[in-house]
Structures are given as structure tokens and as C-alpha cells.
């Protein structure tokens, strides 16, 4: 399903980033980093329109020839980015949304852990397995 899942802190440094073909990890890092441009653009655009009922899901950030990059931002401005292979055409918007929702739930669990310092890289097995499930599901 997803080929890369990233959690990015409010300050835009990565809290968690994992990608499937490990050899192209660097490429995904670049992709995710660049996508922050669009995330910021969308956040600021959304902020203007409706401050209260903000939609967390940002939709497709930008497509590339091979991948589609989707974004999601929590209320605490933590960003989730999911990169999906373009050839995987069976994925609909709803499925992407539910992936983000799952990710958000798992992230909330991580944050609830009293031993986790907010701002530290995420090293949670439970979170890892949630992400793994997203990545394996299709491939």
C-alpha cells in the first residue's frame, strides 16, 4: 500500500520515517522533505478559510511520475506524510484517509506513553507494526 510513511514534528524535523525499498530511502527523504512545502501552503490556506472546523486530511500534496504523496496534519501541527506508488491505482481517497486515521491513533498512543518525550524520534514497536501493516497490506 504505502511505500513510505513519515511523521514530522511541528518544527519540521522527522520523528519517524520508514520506507519500503530501503535502497531508495534517500529519495523518499527528499520527497517527504519537499512535500513539507505543500503541507505548509495548505495549512496556511486552510487556516485562512476556516479556523475552527479544520480538516486534518490535506489530500494529495503532489503527484510525481512514480509516487503520490498524501498529507495529514494533527491539531498540534505534527505532519503525517504517506507516499503511495502511482501504479497502485486501486487506492481511493477513502482508503488513504483511513490509513491516516490509523496512523493518527497509533501516534496518539505513542504520545500517551509516559516514557515518551514529545519531540523525540518515535521508537515504538506498536507504532512500527501499525506502519508495517500499512506498507505490507498491498505489496
Amino acid at each position, binding site marked *: 500500500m504505502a511505500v513510505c510513511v513519515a511523521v514530522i*514534528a511541528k*518544527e*519540521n*524535523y*522527522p520523528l519517524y520515517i520508514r520506507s519500503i525499498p530501503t535502497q531508495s*530511502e*534517500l529519495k523518499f*527523504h*527528499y520527497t517527504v*522533505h*519537499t512535500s*513539507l*512545502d*505543500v503541507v505548509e*501552503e495548505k495549512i496556511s490556506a486552510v487556516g485562512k478559510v476556516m479556523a475552527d472546523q479544520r480538516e486534518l486530511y490535506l489530500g494529495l500534496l*503532489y*503527484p*510525481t*511520475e512514480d509516487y503520490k504523496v498524501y498529507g495529514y496534519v494533527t491539531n498540534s501541527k505534527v505532519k503525517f506524510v504517506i507516499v503511495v506508488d*502511482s*501504479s497502485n*491505482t486501486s487506492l481511493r481517497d477513502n482508503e488513504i484517509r483511513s490509513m491516516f486515521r490509523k496512523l493518527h491513533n497509533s501516534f496518539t498512543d505513542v504520545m500517551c506513553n509516559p516514557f515518551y518525550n514529545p*519531540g523525540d524520534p518515535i521508537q515504538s514497536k506498536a507504532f512500527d507494526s501499525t506502519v508495517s501493516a500499512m506498507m505490507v497490506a498491498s505489496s
Partner: protein
Amino acid sequence: MESHEEKPIIYTMENKPIVTCAGDQNLLTALYSLLAQQLPREPMEWRRSYGRAPKMIHLEANFVQFKEELLPKEGNKALLTFPFLHIYWTDCCDTETYKASVKEDMQRWQSVLKLHSSTDWLIVVVESDNKKKNKTNILPRTSIMDKIRNDFCNKQSDRCVALLDPLKESSRSQESWNSFLTKLRTLLLMSFTKNLGRFEDDMRTLREKRTEPGWSFCDYFMVQEELAFVFEMLQQYEDALVQYDELDALFTQYVLNFGAGDGANWLGSFCQPVRNWNGLLLRRPIDMEKRELIQRGEASLLDLRSYLFSRQCTLLIFLQRPWEVTQRALELLHNCVQELRLLEVSVVQGALDCWVFLSCLEVLHRIEGCCDRTQLEANFSHTVGLWTYATEKLKSLGCLCGLVSENGPNSEELNRTVDLLAGLGTERPETANSLQSPYKKLKEALSSMESFEKHYLELSHAALEMYRAIGRLRSARLVGKSLAEFYMRKGDAQTAKTFLQDSLKSYTAEGWSLPLTHTRKQIAECQKQLQQTEDYLQTSALLASDKNLTDEERKHFCQEILTFANKAPESKDQRVALSMTAFAQLRELKFQPASASVHVGASLQLELRLCSLMPVPVQLEQLAASVHFIGEQPGTRSGPAGTQRRPGLSPDGTISFPAVSPSGGVLPGTGMPALELYEIQDRSPSDNMLNSTSVVCKNAHMLLRGSEGSSPLDVHSAVGSAFTIEDGTQVLKTNNVTLLPGNNSVIFTALSTKPGSYTLRQLCATVGRVQFVMPHIYPIVKYEVYSQEPQLTIEPLAESLLAGLPQRVKFTILTGHYEVKKGDALQLSNTDSMPILHSSSCFARILSGTGELVGEAALSIQASEKVTSISLPLTPPYHTLEFQLEVLCHIPLSPARVENERLTNGEIRHRPKSRTRFNSGMACIDQKVSIDCPWSIYSILISLTFYTPFRAKHSLLSAGKRKYIQVCLENVSNTNFRLANQTLSEHQHTPLLELLSLNAKTHQVVYSKQSVYSLWEVKWTTEPLPCLQCVFSASFSPADAPDTALKPYSYEFQLERVSTLYSVKADIQPAVGEQQCRAGTLCRLEVSVTRLIEPSDTEGEDEELTENEGLRTTKLMYEVVDNSSNWAVCGKSSGLVSMPVAAMATHKVQMEVMPLFAGKLPFPSIRVFKYLPHSAQPTSQPDTDSCLENDNLSLLDKGLDEQGDTASLRSRGSIHSVGSNEQQQRALPMPRREPFSPGQVFNSSHTQQVLVLPSTDDHVLEVNVT
């Protein structure tokens, strides 16, 4: 719309629905222009089937002459050429002509229409006044209309309309013209609805057959496109677009199904190899070439997609949605690439890149053509994606064709270029004349390296600028990085570096380690090419410590540094200073000893925990720490006692350093380097006066640089000079250290030659020519060197010293800088009250400065009369000498009256301050000891505080005339004691006095905080008993000590006026006639005071005696008080009696009291005082408190003498003793009362009780039982 260079075959913009006109062609010619102009003027509402929203449309029509060929043949689905309405025009106004020709013509026309089952027709009868005038036999016009209606419109009378002189400007004609137009529009719309509805139904039917074999997408495409054309013709672009989008979606779904293994036959034609990649063509509304290819079923996937998109693009531009075009274009291009991959269509390498490149530029050109500059600029965010995509594709083409390498393309690459160019075909005629067409650009770019570079840079910079303009800086930097890679390939490392450093900055600032490492690696390559040795080495160090790299890569970069370091320097000054942060990190620093404070000359070790970040062991020639020294200020402090805990120094002497990200990046939040300030003081050399003082920031350059937001790398490269070792400071060194990867421990021995404070400034590791410098150590690392005076302290071993028992005290000598030599001795002045008990086995322990036992030595103690001399063993400086001595402090006889002086032998004679602090109930004795020390000419006075373990109290008890002495001994210490041999002795050995012990003979244990009472009866024969000087003495020892350890304790006290003078007896009698006292009724209280002994001379001074009629009397005052509210004393409760001074003289006083309660009530207490009249000379200092009130006395005046034995009950109901002592004068000072000493008055009815019955009243007693 642009001007078109070529007229397409179907020209949709100028297509209008066809309306055929039969009948009188002249009429039509006359009305044509008016009709074409007036028809679209008014909009009509178009209601549509399938719940689609009604629309207002402006109708236009193309009026053509009726021909039978125009009517569609059976099965012809073309809609564009479909005549939607047929009109028959006639201006016939006489029946003859009508009958003769017109009717026949009409019938023919009707039959043709019927043949083609067309029901959309209209007959127009034009009437003009001119014609009416010419003809004589005018039929009323209705008759012609009627006839026509009769003949043709059997049910549809509205199919025939009359048009009244349309060319005239009359209201009547205008009216009829308008109603005609409305009719025309209505009929046209009806026809549209009917025919389009039928068409759509057919189309749907066709679509439903798509699963049948032989179904062709191309055929279907043509049908649905026909519908789109019609909508476009009706200017319903939205609807037209929907048709194309449906086709698009259908096709996409087929491709996806094909990918999922569900292939359709017809799709095979789209899977043919791509032979032509000349990009999108958006300049024509309809690309007929491609359309024909589709029609023939020969189109490739790219052809179909191109055609579809060009149509969508055209419609979107009609709808003025150009930004949707760019967005869809990007999707289309991505999608096409994916679809070709999915369908496994064979494509020449690079062909798709060409196609995408051309398409991107074509779309951009098309958009630029229909938007102005400001609009474009405002919408960069929509176009920039295409620009970037084009740039990427051009770059990959460049790589493919060898245009990016330094050497130019090889033959294989040239062949590829030729193949690619061939696939482009010839340039399309539309753009042949324009200079900037995508086709020309691509051809030119692929033609030579120079032009490729020009085009590539142009595109890249355009994309870069756009990203910057819309604030997508990360994207801009990614393009920049891509540019840098290009420059690297071209060998232009300098330009590449600037772009890379820009990107590096962004990755560093946001903490993206992987891109950071990658970029840094590229920078290293640039720096190596540019031969920027120092920068390269610094970057190499960072890379060597980078965990994101493989071991091999890290080793490579580490080796680069080591190779350089070990190369022989070309010139002298070829040392390179690098920042240590990437090389190794100082994690922890540990002082040994932990206090980081040592005396002069002592060894202080600093253990550095350095974490080497290098992947291989590195041999350091030298590791040096420079130290800043500040001399000790006189008078500030000396000795370790003043050591304050410095910040950052933990109790075990370690300082931890915050972890810094080795990649040079400051992690978000770690912030700036620490501020380092120097204080500068300028003193005049002559008198050391302060001239000026100032504070200088040492690392201002770093702090200011940081705020400018430059990357740490810049700092490293720019301020290399900051890494040089500070001159003129002392340096701690360790040579030949091997740093293994990971944690290493390096030990420095600190300098401790001069007292003062030493601050570690820098750390510098030297490897050959390379020095790794840590320019600032923060938190500040500091150690102190001090010099210390010798010190002697004596402290108790237990928590407190007890007097009276042998106690151990500890002598501690801190030698400080003094060395105890042979023959040195402590001279203790002896005192009587505190002898030093020395045993033969007395050992001294010698401890080193850190508290380790160094040795033990026997002490020799010699005591002379005045001095006890303790000869000390040899002890080196800064050691501790400890030994214990036993001392005994005698308990002073009576702590309450300490007058005894304690002499210390020697020159000082002082009175000890025996403060009797009753702190925690213990009396304490401060005992001073004067000691002469070998290191000082002065004696040291040391005060020891001893606590008395007991507190004694005595009391005299009486029973009539018999006397008892009770001594209470309270143990106030925390120890339990055994008590023995309590004795009481009379000091003066009064004759005929006997003290009879009533105590147990055995030992008694006095527990802590408890008391022991002892009692003696005093028996004597002489009268009166004089003053007694008594001594209580006892032996005590700690409860667990053997009997031999008993120590004496004594308590001295004095007893005076021991014998009993008066006996007081009280009696309570019920009221007369009553058997028992009753509550609430008055009872009689009789108090009788009896003198027991004859007056003696010694007591005369005590009592005021009066000679009256030969009888010596003394005055006593009595008082009846009931404190417990049992009794109500009625009337006077106190009075004076005159007492004869003779044995057994008795005086009785009566008064009335009332019991308030029933039960056994204790008697009210009766007190007797001495009464000293005002005239009496006070024998002792009068106590103001005991003065009586004047008004009280006024009544105590007369008749005291007459009262005699019988107390008189006064009529007032109160006891009243009235004295007639006239000598009392008010003016004199007030009389006083004085209490008797305890024992002088014996109250024989003390604590006696009397039974009181309840009152006879029947009170209701409520009893609640719960």
C-alpha cells in the same frame, strides 16, 4: 480563441444547428439576416431529461436550403449534420395559387419528411400588405392559414404560424415577429430534447454492449464525441467536457482492468509500440489527424490520450479554467507514463521523456497564450509543477544522450539522439514559424552540449525562481541540488558547492539527517575538486563520524584525514586546525578527588571521557587542555572548608557535557554556543589601584554569526583561526593516546603548584599536521588549589558529653601545610574539674587527605602536675591525625549555685562560664581546654560542653509535727543509670538529730527521663529545729557498666523553718436541725487554728508579735477558697485572727458555706498567712504582689481581740471579724501578708470530704437512655 492557421474540416465554433428551409427561397433570403440576428437575442429555458438541471441557452441556427440529402439516412448517427427543424416558407395569399402550386409543393416536402420520419417541421406564412393591395380578390388571411392547417396540421395547429410583414416597423408586425421567434425557439428546443434524448439512449445502449466481443472503444468514442460536439455547438461546454471526461474515465478503467489481467480485445490496438512522440498539440480545437486515427482504430495510446486532452483543454479554456488545464496536464503525463508501463508497450528509451517534455512546454505555451503576465505570476503554483517536470525530463534526456558529461556524447549516445529525434517527426505546421516552439527547443537542446546546457539552465532557473516566488523553498533547494549535480558533472564544482550549501543549510536547520549526509558527501567532493583542503578535511571529519554512512565510506573519509595528517608538510606553517565536534565529543569529565579542590602540591587527576566518533582507532600524538589560571585572592578563602559546590559538578566529581549532534547540525532547541566572557582589570603598577575594569566577550564572532543564520559549516571554514591554541596559558598534556571508536578515557594530571583557580579553556588533539580543537569547554570546568593552615579540633565521640562519667573525645589534627616532626607534642593544661584519664593503649590514626588510612602509631602521653603532654607521631602535610582520649568532668556540687572557679593551669586564669542552659532539660557545663600546639606560639582554647545527667529536687513533707525529707532525682540524659547508696546527711552534724532512711537498700535503675524518689524521716529532740544543711549523695553508673564504675553524685540543699507552727483544722456542720448537709442549704464551717509550739527566739524575727494585756499575740490571716466551685462561701471568706503566742492556743472562726452539689465534696481549701501590719518594718524585701487591697482591710479593723474563742455570727449573715485596732492608720504604707514556709502550717483536714445530700426539691430528672 487564437487565430487559426489552418481551417479544420469540422469547425465547431462556427457550427450551428441546421434548420432547413423549403418553399419560397426569396422570402428566406430577405429575412435571413434578421432571423440569424434575432434568434439568439432572447435566452430560452431548456428543460432536460434524466433530472439534469434546466439551463438557459441562447439558440442559434444555420438556415440552409432544404435538400433531401440533408436528411439523415437510416443508421446514420451523425448529429452535427442533423437538421433539427424544417421550415416551409410561403407568402401565398390567394387560394388559387395555393391550390395550384403551393399545396402540392408542401405535400411533396411533407412526404419527404415523413419518409425520414422527421416530425420537426414548421410552416410559415408571411403576409404583407403590399401583396394584399395588388391582388383584388383577397381572401381573408385566415382562410389560407385555415386551409394549410386543415391540410397539414391535423392535430398540431401550432405547426403553422403567420408572420406579419416582418420588414415593417409596425407594432403589429413586431408582435407577430416576436411570437414567431418564440415559436421557433420552442420548436428547436423540443427537437433538441427529442433528438438528443434519442441519441443518448442509443449511445447508452451501445455502451452497455461493451462487454460483447467485437465492441470497439473507438467506435463508441466517435458516438459520444458527437454528443460532445453538439453540446459544444450549443455552447454547453460543461456538458461537452463531461462527455470527454466520461470517455477518459472509461478508457482509464479499461487500462486498469487490463493491468489486473482483464484485457479487452480492442485494447490491443493501443498496445502497439510507440513510434511517434511529438507531444500534445493544443493549438487546434480539433486535431483531425488524430481523430481520424481513432476513427480508423489505428490510434496509439498516446494518440488517444493526446486527442482527448486537447479536446478537454479546449473546453476548459472556453470555460476559463486554465489552471485546471495545468493540473490535469500533470496528471495526464504521469498517468500516461504509468499506463504505458502497465500495458507493457514497448517504447524507445527516452521517447517518453521527449513526449513529456514537449507536452509540458506545449501546455505551458498554451496557457501563456491565454493569460497575461500578472495572472501567470499569481498562479506559479499551478505551472511550476510542469516546469519542474520538463526540467527533470530534459535532464534525463541529457544524461541519456551524453550531453551532461564532460567529454560529450559517445557514438552510442549519438545514435540514441538520432533515434529520438526521428520519433519527433516533422514539426507541425502551426508552430513552424514560431521561434520558440517546444519542438524547436527540444531539437536544439539535443543538438549540442552547449545548447543543452543553455536550455537546461533556463528551465531550471525558471523553475527555481517560481518556487522561490511562491515560497516553496524546499522544492527550490531540491531543484538547486539537481542543478548542483549537473554542475558537478560539468566539472564546475564551485557553482555546485554554492547550491549544495544552500540545501545543506535547509536540511541542517530542519534536522533531516539522511539528505544532510548525502548533500555533505557531495560537498566533500566539490571541496576535494576545488582543493579546499581545510574545508574538505572538516567535511571529511563530519562524514567520518556520520552514522548514516556505511563503515567503508566512513573509513574512507577518516583515512583521508589521516593521510593528510601524516603527509610531510610542504612548508613550515602547514598545521590545520579543525573543529573537534565531528571528531570526538567530550562526554564527561571526572575529578579525582571529587571535590575538584586540592591543596598545593597534591595530585589532582582529570579523567576525560572522550567519545571518538571516528570509525577506526586514531593515534593522537598529543591531547592537550589549555588552562586559565587565576591566582588566589588574599583573604577570600583557604582550605577545602570553603569549597562551594560549583554548578555542574556532581557529588562524585563528574561534569557531564551536553551531547551535540556530530553532524554539525544544531539540533532544534540546542541553540547557540555558550557565551564566554572575560573580565579585564587594569591596575596601576605602582599602588595596585584599579584603573578600569571591563567585560569582553571572547566568542562574539560565533554568537553573532549564529544569529545571522549561517550554517555551522561556514563557521568552521571561516573562523579557522579560532581553533588555534590560546597562547600564554598553561597546558595539561597527555602524549600518544590512541582513541578507539566509542568511549575513551584520558587522564590528565592537573597542575597544582600555585594556589588559585584553574579553568579549562580548550581541548586540542593533535594528529600529525591536523589539530582538532574544541575551542570552548562548556559548562565551565574549574578546579581549585589551596593552601591550608593546620587545625586542631576536639569533638565528643558520642552525641553529647556527660559530666561525671569518663567520656571519650576525639582529637583531630588537620596538618595542612605543616609537617609534624619528631618531638612535636600537644601540651594540654590540666584542670581539676576535668582530669584527662590516659590509658596505656592509645593509638593515633593517620589519614591521608582523601580519608584513606595511612598508618597507626602509639601515642605517648606524659602527665605532669600542670601539663599533659601528648607527643605526636610523624605526619606528612595535608594529612589528618586522629586519636581519642578519655576525660572526666566532675559534676559541680550544686549546679544552681556555681561559684567554684575552675582554674586552667598556665598563664590564663579564667572563670568558666558555667551557663546553666536548660536545653532539653540538661544543665550543661562548658569546659575550656587550653592547648599549646607545635605549629603555633599561641595556645588554642577549645571548649567542651558536658551535660549533667541528673536534676535533683528536694521537698519537706509534714505529718503533724513529724517531718520528712524527700529527694527527687530525675535522669535527664538519654542513658539509663544504676543508682546505689543514696544517703542523706546533715552537714553541720546537729546534735540529737537523726535522719531515718525509708528507702530500699538495693540498687535502683533510673531510666532515661524518669525519676527516683528517696525519703527520710527527720527526728530530733531539741526545740526548735534549726536550719538544716543537707547533702544528698548517691553513686551512679551506666546501667550496663560493672559495679566498679560507680561514680558519685551529690546534691546539697538547705532546709529552714522545719517545725510545724500551726495546725489548721476545719469542720463542716449541717444547718441546725439537719442530720446531713444538703445541697443548696447553708452549712457551718468552723476553722480552728492551733499553735503547736512555744515561740522561740529564733522565730521572733519571723512573726510580728504584739504585747497586749500581758498576752503576746501574733496576727494571722486566713482565707477560705474553693477553686472547684463546689462551695459558695457566704460573706467574707478571709479575715484576720489574733493568735496568742503560746502552745496549744486555739482560735476558731466560723462562717457559712453552701454546698452547690450533692455528693462527697472536698472541703474548701483554707490557707493561713502571716499578717504583717503596715507599721512593721519589713524583715525582708516586701513583695508588692502580696499587698492587700485597701477596702479589704477597712473591714478587718476592730474587735479582733474581743472575739475570743467563740466566733460571732453577725446579723448580716456573714462572718465578720472586726478588730478594734486603733493604731492602724490609713496613711501608713499598706500591710502585707506573707506565706509560711512549707511545713510550718499543717492542715489536718486537707483533702477531707463531707457528704452532702441532694436538696429536698423534687426536681425532675430527665434520663435519656440511648
